[in-house]
């Protein structure tokens, strides 16, 4: 199978990136040392090619009502243009189809960014739901014209570059004249358009910064301008350890269609209190979770990895994501464990032929340049 490539592929190769098959995409895993790249983002700033992620525009007059039904989080929280919201998209049975960010562009236009590996499945699901979702028109219309259609467009023409780190915003401002005036006042989780670019103060590292969506053919020039302003390229390897330290879920590892958001640490994104109905709500109300996602800090020497079994006083759980934390210089993990396991508990993790001791901690582990768990 031929791997898919982003418009920055040649640039990565010229830079000497180590390229890997990343869910069907030919992507840079690192450009040298993954740990150095991790520290570069925590301490200064770096840029990631995340063009494999998919931008989906949803337009039409009934879009807000459609998204109120489609997403577990409530888009009514989005009142100002450019504001963003993190949400899960659920199956009827409460399983997670994907996690995503939805941006409010205007009353008839919302923009959603979904994961690369799930994009086609997500769009098919959205289209199916939109077809079944009929919004009554506010004014009576002649027979046959009484409904609004929702248009779902996969923006395969767009690339996305994430610039992350304490110095990310100031370096973007030097690289892109005019961007400071437009984006300086953006609060976290909001965005502004500049020419053909859409600049969002969002990310997946636990650091400040921007995610910039722009026409794919313009991405190499943006990359060069950022590089000329001292922004170092960072591979997807460091992106994974940064997001894990920041306690951010990775779809396909920390949750998928077989588990719900409440057992995936996403209760804060699910609106079960309001009257609003949404896909999966009835299942979530009918099935209170008996597991939850917690952080683990390995006290013994070794490295926690996904799928290792976690033995607790309340029963067995499993690590969903585990790695070495360059910031803490210890191994950390997210694990799904019985719901009565408490922060501070000591648990045993089966690694090869040994049982190693780990402590249950509240995550995130590190954000904004430093450790935030007590060691």
């Amino acid at each position, binding site marked *: 199978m031929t791997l898919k490539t982003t418009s920055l592929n040649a640039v990565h190769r010229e830079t000497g990136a180590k390229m890997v098959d990343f869910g069907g995409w030919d992507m840079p*895993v*690192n450009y040298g*040392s*993954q*740990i150095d790249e991790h520290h570069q983002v925590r301490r200064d700033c770096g840029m990631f090619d995340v063009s494999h992620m998919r931008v989906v525009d949803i337009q039409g007059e009934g879009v807000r009502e459609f998204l109120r039904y489609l997403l577990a989080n409530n888009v009514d929280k989005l009142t100002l243009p450019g504001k963003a919201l993190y949400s899960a998209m659920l199956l009827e049975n409460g399983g997670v189809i994907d996690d995503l960010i939805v941006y409010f562009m205007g009353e008839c236009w919302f923009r959603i960014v979904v994961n690369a590996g799930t994009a086609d499945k997500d769009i098919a699901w959205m289209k199916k739901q939109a077809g079944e979702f009929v919004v009554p028109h506010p004014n009576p219309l002649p027979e046959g014209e009484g409904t609004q259609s929702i248009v779902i467009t996969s923006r395969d023409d767009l690339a996305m570059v994430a610039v992350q780190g304490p110095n990310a915003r100031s370096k973007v401002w030097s690289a892109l004249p005019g961007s400071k005036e437009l984006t300086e006042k953006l609060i976290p989780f909001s965005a502004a358009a500049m020419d053909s670019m859409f600049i969002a103060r969002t990310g997946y590292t636990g650091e400040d910064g921007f995610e910039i969506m722009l026409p794919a053919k313009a991405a190499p020039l943006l990359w060069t301008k950022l590089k000329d302003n001292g922004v170092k390229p960072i591979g997807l*390897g460091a992106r994974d*350890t940064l997001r894990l330290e920041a306690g951010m879920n990775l779809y396909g590892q920390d949750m998928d269609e077989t588990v719900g958001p409440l057992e995936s640490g996403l209760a804060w994104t699910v609106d079960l209190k309001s009257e609003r109905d949404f896909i999966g709500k009835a299942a979530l109300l009918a099935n209170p979770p008996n597991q939850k996602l917690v952080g683990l800090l390995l006290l013994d*020497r*070794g*490295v926690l*990895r996904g799928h290792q079994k976690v033995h607790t006083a309340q029963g067995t759980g499993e690590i969903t994501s585990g*790695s*070495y934390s*360059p910031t803490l210089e210890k*191994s950390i993990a997210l694990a799904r464990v019985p719901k009565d396991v408490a922060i501070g508990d000591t648990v045993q993790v089966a690694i*090869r032929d040994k049982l190693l001791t780990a402590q249950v901690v509240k995550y995130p582990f590190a954000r904004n340049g430093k450790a935030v768990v007590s060691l």
Partner: protein
Amino acid sequence: MSNPSNLKYTASHEWVKTEADGTISIGITQHAQELLGDMVFVEAPAVDRHLKAREECAVVESVKAAADVYAPVSGIVTEVNGELDSSPENINNDPYAAWMFKMKPDNAADIDALMDAAAYQAVVDSEEH
């Protein structure tokens, strides 16, 4: 970095150096450390343990993945490199100096049967193509 010609090699990417006292030092090759990336943990075999040739006896873990290390020949573990506990990155920085453990081989002739640098390079080249 080329593979030193005074060392012997295995298809599972260990290097073997014969020391003056007849013991052998074992580490992992440049190719292996490059594949694994930044090392963060090394688990060496216990001293005095008897290993059989090609037995799994140690583990190296990078940020990315864990990999087994195999005994190149049969023999007894005589010493482990404790420095790697606190500085596993030595393997990345200088793989042919960062020995993991030493063994006293049961049969010194077993070493001669291992690959030389050229034969090992052919193994690496075949993996890359």
